[in-house]
């Protein structure tokens, strides 16, 4: 036997460097450029926002109003999500019943759903006679478009859309957290005499605080950045994300980027303490103050009462919410497409039918085909490039000392509002920064890479940490495999499921992304952006068809996720 001393591993160093450079240029730079742009163009910002010769600081007042509205909306969304998401996550984590995996799929659906199409479906469901209103025999929508929720003062329909789109983040994160907590703690608590609700409050809840926080952060960020569905249902009210889109389309880039920076910074000020707290690796939260005995007794009595009387209700209400927010809109939009297929069912005009709009004079079908092609190319190319960066990046994150900071930096693209992201990419690559490429398909791809990388990395890391990769790799090494061999024959096959899931999540997200795409797309329109255009052009039947088409496409992809992740 001949023992070779270790060769200088120049090739692996090269891979690390290329990966890190790709990561910094393609993912990090666009997210940070926005803020630096505000400083570069400060004079223009001041002129537009604070000291406009005609309207003074009217834009600034407008911004504050919009920001305040956005945060109010996101906070109330997260609180609502938590109240109903916790019981649902508990059911998914702890109960076994027929149809459980179907329920899980339905809960996940909004994650892969194209937001603009889904927003449109929700709009149809609640505010038109083709939706719930018609089913209930009313001659109008169930609720008027301008109905507001009292107290928080946000439009009902916007709230519903945000709840639907953020609900999966809370439920999935919490269900995973609950599953990771050994059930014996709960069993012990029950045998020690606590009712289910008290057990939850004293045992499961404190142990799952980190999960509750990280789920809330994701949901909050998602709501804050949501553009595609909101732009369709918002009507006259405007969130911060939509305001950025509007300003960008009016070419007030400095104003838009100032707004985007404000949004990112405020979001970080809210999220950072939570992230820091989670980063300390605390496993539970102790209540730092003493609750008086009399109050404790009253709480216990209440919990005893509620546990007995209302246990059914706690199971049924979340299910009802999922049904109403996810399933009903899909059915409603399908129903509408059928109703509108040949002609407008109310006026009888064939110009108001789906068929006529697609194949008639406006030729929407051709545009749709083109948009589908653009969407698929964008999704494929961006996901593929993201995959090339993500796979080595996961190994860097897991093995190098600088891995954990990279992982936390990767959260930034996830929480940056999509419209700010689009603006940032536009500024960096096109007008003010590198000036390398124009708006269009390549810019869309660059934008989608930014959020595809964290999505793929997160699901790969989940798979990596779920199986004991380092043990298998060490084992392969002592069996004679080189480091490269071990990765190829052992690690990659073992995290294959995570790679495929990440790929499909990123692919569907790219397919459905609206907010950022809308800003950077130029003339290369994608399908979700087409829905927005159709709604704005009041080509409602065509929008109905396109939304349905998108939703069916993403449901199909979800089925593929199911099949691929089921494997051995």
């Amino acid at each position, binding site marked *: *036997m001949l*023992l*070779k*001393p*270790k060769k200088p591993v120049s090739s692996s160093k090269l891979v690390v460097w290329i990966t890190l450079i790709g990561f910094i240029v393609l993912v990090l730079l666009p997210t940070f450029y926005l803020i630096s742009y505000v400083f570069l163009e400060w004079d223009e910002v001041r002129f537009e926002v604070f000291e406009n010769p005609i309207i003074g600081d009217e834009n600034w007042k407008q911004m504050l109003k919009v920001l305040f509205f956005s945060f109010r909306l996101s906070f109330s969304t997260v609180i609502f999500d938590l109240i109903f998401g916790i019981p649902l996550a508990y059911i998914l984590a702890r109960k076994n019943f027929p149809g459980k995996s179907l329920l899980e799929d339905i809960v996940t659906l909004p994650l892969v759903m194209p937001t603009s199409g889904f927003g449109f479906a929700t709009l149809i469901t609640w505010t038109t006679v083709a939706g719930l209103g018609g089913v209930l025999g009313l001659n109008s929508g169930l609720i008027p478009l301008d109905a507001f929720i009292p107290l928080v003062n946000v439009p009902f329909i916007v709230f519903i859309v945000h709840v639907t789109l953020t609900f999966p983040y809370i439920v999935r994160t919490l269900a995973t957290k609950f599953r990771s907590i050994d059930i014996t703690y709960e069993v012990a608590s029950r045998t020690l005499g606590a009712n289910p609700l008290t057990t939850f409050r004293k045992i499961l809840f404190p142990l799952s605080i980190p999960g509750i926080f990280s789920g809330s952060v994701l949901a909050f960020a998602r709501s804050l950045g949501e553009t595609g569905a909101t732009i369709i249902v918002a009507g006259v009210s405007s969130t911060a994300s939509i305001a950025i889109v509007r300003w960008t389309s009016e070419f007030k880039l400095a104003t838009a980027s100032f707004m985007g920076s404000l949004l990112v910074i405020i979001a970080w000020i809210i999220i950072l303490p939570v992230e820091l707290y989670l980063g300390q690796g605390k496993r539970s939260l102790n209540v730092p103050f003493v609750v008086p005995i009399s109050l404790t007794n009253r709480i216990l009595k209440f919990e005893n009462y509620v546990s007995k009387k209302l246990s059914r209700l706690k199971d049924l209400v979340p299910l009802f919410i999922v049904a109403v927010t996810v399933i009903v809109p899909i059915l409603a939009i399908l129903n509408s497409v059928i109703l509108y297929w040949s002609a407008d069912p109310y006026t009888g005009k064939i110009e108001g039918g789906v068929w006529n709009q697609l194949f008639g004079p406006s030729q929407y079908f051709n545009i749709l085909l083109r948009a589908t092609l653009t969407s698929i190319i964008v999704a494929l190319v961006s996901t593929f490039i993201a995959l090339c960066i993500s796979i080595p990046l996961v190994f860097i994150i897991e093995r190098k000392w600088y891995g954990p900071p990279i992982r936390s930096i990767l959260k930034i693209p996830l929480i940056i509002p999509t419209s700010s992201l689009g603006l940032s990419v536009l500024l960096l690559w096109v007008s003010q920064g590198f000036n390398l490429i124009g708006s269009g398909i390549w810019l869309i791809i660059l934008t989608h890479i930014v959020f595809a990388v964290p999505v793929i990395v997160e699901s790969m890391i989940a798979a990596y940490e779920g*199986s*004991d990769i380092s*043990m*298998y790799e*060490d*084992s*392969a*090494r*002592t*069996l*004679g*495999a*080189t*480091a490269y*061999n071990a990765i190829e*024959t*052992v690690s990659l*096959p*073992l995290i*294959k499921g995570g790679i495929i899931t990440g790929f499909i999540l990123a692919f569907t997200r790219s397919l459905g992304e609206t907010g950022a795409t809308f800003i950077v797309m130029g003339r290369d329109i994608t399908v979700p952006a087409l829905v927005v255009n159709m709604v704005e052009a009041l080509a409602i039947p065509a929008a109905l068809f396109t939304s349905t088409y998108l939703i069916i496409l993403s449901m199909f992809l979800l089925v593929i996720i199911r099949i691929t992740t089921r494997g*051995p």
Partner: protein
Amino acid sequence: MPLIKLVNITKRFGKITALNDINLSVENGEYICILGPTGAGKTTLLRIIAGLLELDEGEVYIEGQLVNDVPPEDRNTVYMFQQFALFPHMDVWQNVSYTPSIKDWDNDKINYVTSEILEMVRLAERRDAYPKELSGGMQQRVALARGIASGARILLLDEPFGALDARLRVNLRSQLRALVKSQKLTTIHVTHDQEEALMTADRVVVLRNGRIEQIGDPNQIYSKPRSIFIANFVGGANFIEGNVKKVDDEGSLIEFRDDFQLRVSTPSTNVGEKVVVTVRHEDTLIRTHPVIGSNNFSCHIESRIFIGDSMVYVLKLENGITKSSKGLLSDNYVIHNIGKQRIFSFQPGKCLIFSYPQTGLLQEIEAV
């Protein structure tokens, strides 16, 4: 020339010194057990030999060659994990033929070697099974077969029976030893189970707090433990604290609580020194009359524990200290009832004498 030679190995994790100046030589074909309590540094040492962990100081030689900078795949060692680490996405055949196939042997050779080895571990029929479909014992055999097929001459076993249930463990010990001996492999086997180490090893290395406490064959380790810690950790014993009263030709006279005295046949160095005398439970007797030439103490039986083939008695001496005695339950064995007055007796030649540990006796025997 020893096959493996470790010279002054030191490894630190932050402020903790996991291994402190380890020196060890392993001969070709030898079966070594590294025995120690949890946290002694056993696994760290094994990982350093395999090249899975870099060391801070010292040298590792394999076949006379310094391998500090040789990566694990080129060290001619195979590391077997406690959980066996069978690749879950490969079946038995693919697992066993892992090394031959990544080394690009030709197909005939791969097939021949793999089927030979599977035959040897009696798993030829399960060649298409996936690891999770196999029992723990079978998984262990697959892991062994995979290691043997890799062609490595040095087998590093990290708690190889840790993931198996107790009954199976005992049965598999001798099988494992026979198998690796028949293949003429050199084995380093890490365990915290003293019985396992004594049963399987040619030589036992006792590791404690990152240091080697004793190296010797199983018999030496058991009958001539070099420290109180080993006496307690391997086999267990009675401990009596006392002072050396007199040293003469017949050994030493030790005085312990309430001026009680006992004889130890080994001469101790200093009169007046504080010492600990140990005597194994099974080296003591319970009699109705004193035994001539032995240490005899009157006692009464406090309690007894039935262990199947033997009985352990807890006795209280007249000066109030409690001791244990173990007797094999042979045909003519007399069972003593609780509360009876008896004589606790042991020969001076069965006693070992240690100077009193600086950190106290409890520290030495409770750190296990």
